């Protein structure tokens, strides 16, 4: 049974909440002050803390800080009577799972709690064995299922991934995460951060794919008020925001050459200067970058600086595409089904055998993200408590065709193995998929990118890389 601690100095609220949550299957304890809340936290492993922002002896921010530093794996939801967006953002940045404003509505609370527990689920599972969450074995268990469920799975590929994360997390190495879109690169980066000594410091994620050349510098380094037209206020850059913690740069291959040069200087010297300022700020930031393209290819073509690549590449992790994780597909699908049930308040319990077959044969170009979306959609439109092929989007049935093509060449699993061995298998598969989708949508690239669940720029880059015009 999941354990929840309610900290609220309004005794009635705490009592009623506790009754309500107990009825809904949680093991609930209450505390009426910050101090007694911390005392209770010492005694038991709680999955989740619901904490009122205004307490007599302290406040929600301080409680959050203490809980996150002493019990990083316990989820925290802050309840408050003020609806203040700035405060909400700050609390979430500090590690709160969510922020509920009063008046409380029981259904809403239950929904938020269920989601929070789903997210933190695996993180606390490991704790059940004992309080020493930092011990090697426990750590392995916690890694094996982080937030989105990306690492859970029993396939060889996912076990290897978990091993690599465990290996590199405690070090200060920069890491490159390579993998197709939707394979869970950001989740892996988060997981590395959560298992590093920096876990109580900020984790700042930045999508370099969506940065314009002009904005990139100020996003990275920040700027002083008035340093250029439009700089109305001082802005803190992402490097500074992540100081002490981890900075995650997604789609790093999309950065312009000029920004790469500026980035190299910052990474080398570990110092940052806001635009328009003369003051240098010392940095202690671990950098994790992710890309879905072959950076070495970019280097050969002069699009990516080699020196920067070597700065980043102290360790690299390859994210396996979903189609290579065979037995994990259904495991993940069931995990997402449970999440969707909780989210949509439905009770869909299984997939029909035809759906299982579809899932196993499909190529999942959008990987785990695509699987998650498809399961969520199916859970919503399923007419009974079983998901049938009727609830699957058309693109899945369209994808049956290439699978049949392959199966004419022999048994499907065998072909999979062969492809696995071939150096260019991934590239070939991409080529096939992109070409087919493009044909389907009469070469409308925006539509193709949508179906492929990648952004348009990535599609252009891929088309260029495989000489498609």
């Amino acid at each position, binding site marked *: 049974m999941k354990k929840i601690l309610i900290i609220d100095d309004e005794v009635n*609220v705490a009592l*009623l909440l506790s009754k309500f949550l107990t009825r809904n299957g949680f093991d609930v304890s209450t505390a009426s002050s910050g101090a007694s809340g911390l005392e209770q936290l010492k005694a038991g492993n709680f999955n989740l803390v619901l904490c009122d922002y205004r307490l007599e002896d302290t406040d929600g921010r301080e409680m959050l800080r203490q809980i996150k530093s002493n019990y990083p794996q316990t989820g925290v939801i802050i309840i408050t*009577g003020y609806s203040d967006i700035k405060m909400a953002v700050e609390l979430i940045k500090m590690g709160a799972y969510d922020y509920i404003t*009063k*008046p*409380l509505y029981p259904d809403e609370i239950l929904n938020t709690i269920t989601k929070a527990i789903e997210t933190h689920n695996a993180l606390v599972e490991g704790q059940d064995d004992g309080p020493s969450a930092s011990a090697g074995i426990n750590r392995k268990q916690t890694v094996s299922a982080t937030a989105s469920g990306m690492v859970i799975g029993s396939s060889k590929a996912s076990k290897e991934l978990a091993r690599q994360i465990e290996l590199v997390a405690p070090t200060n190495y920069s890491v490159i995460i390579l993998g197709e879109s939707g394979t869970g690169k950001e989740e892996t980066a988060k997981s590395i951060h959560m298992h590093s000594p920096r876990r109580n410091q900020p984790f700042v994620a930045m999508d370099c794919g969506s940065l314009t050349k002009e904005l990139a510098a100020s996003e990275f380094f920040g700027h002083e008020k008035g340093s250029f037209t439009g700089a109305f206020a001082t802005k803190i850059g992402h490097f500074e925001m992540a100081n002490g913690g981890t900075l995650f740069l997604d789609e790093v291959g999309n950065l312009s050459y000029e920004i790469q040069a500026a980035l190299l200087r910052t990474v080398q010297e570990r110092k940052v200067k806001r635009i328009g300022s003369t003051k240098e700020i010392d940095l202690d930031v671990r950098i994790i970058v992710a890309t879905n393209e072959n950076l070495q290819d970019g280097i050969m073509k002069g699009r990516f600086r080699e020196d920067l690549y070597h700065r980043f590449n102290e360790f690299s992790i390859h994210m396996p595409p979903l189609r290579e994780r065979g037995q994990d597909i259904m495991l993940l699908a069931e995990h997402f089904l449970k999440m969707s049930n909780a989210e949509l308040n439905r009770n869909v319990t299984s997939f029909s055998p035809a759906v299982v077959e579809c899932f196993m044969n499909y190529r999942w170009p959008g990987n785990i993200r695509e699987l998650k979306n498809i399961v969520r959609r199916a859970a919503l439109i399923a007419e009974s408590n079983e998901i049938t092929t009727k609830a699957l989007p058309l693109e899945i049935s369209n994808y049956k065709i290439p699978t049949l093509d392959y199966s004419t060449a022999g048994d499907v699993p065998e072909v999979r193995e062969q492809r696995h061995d071939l150096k260019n298998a991934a590239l070939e598969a991409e080529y096939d998929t992109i070409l087919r989708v493009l044909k389907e949508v009469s070469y409308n690239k925006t539509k193709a990118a949508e179906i492929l669940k990648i952004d348009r720029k990535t599609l252009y880059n891929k088309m260029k890389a495989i000489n498609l015009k």
Partner: protein
Amino acid sequence: MPTSQKEDPAERLRTARHDIRNQLSNINLLIEQLKYEMQNAPADQRDCLHMITDSIEKIDSILKSTE
């Protein structure tokens, strides 16, 4: 002369909103408890509870309009 927080009408309104929302939470949770205890009560009694919830939502939207 700087006004102290207590004299500032905006701050007073903010605190009042906060305290009212606290009490509304309380009522919401009480309704939930009553709904549970009155599962076998006649439908019109249970309807009363729904009406109270509606009123709470209205009060909250009035509070929001003062933000």
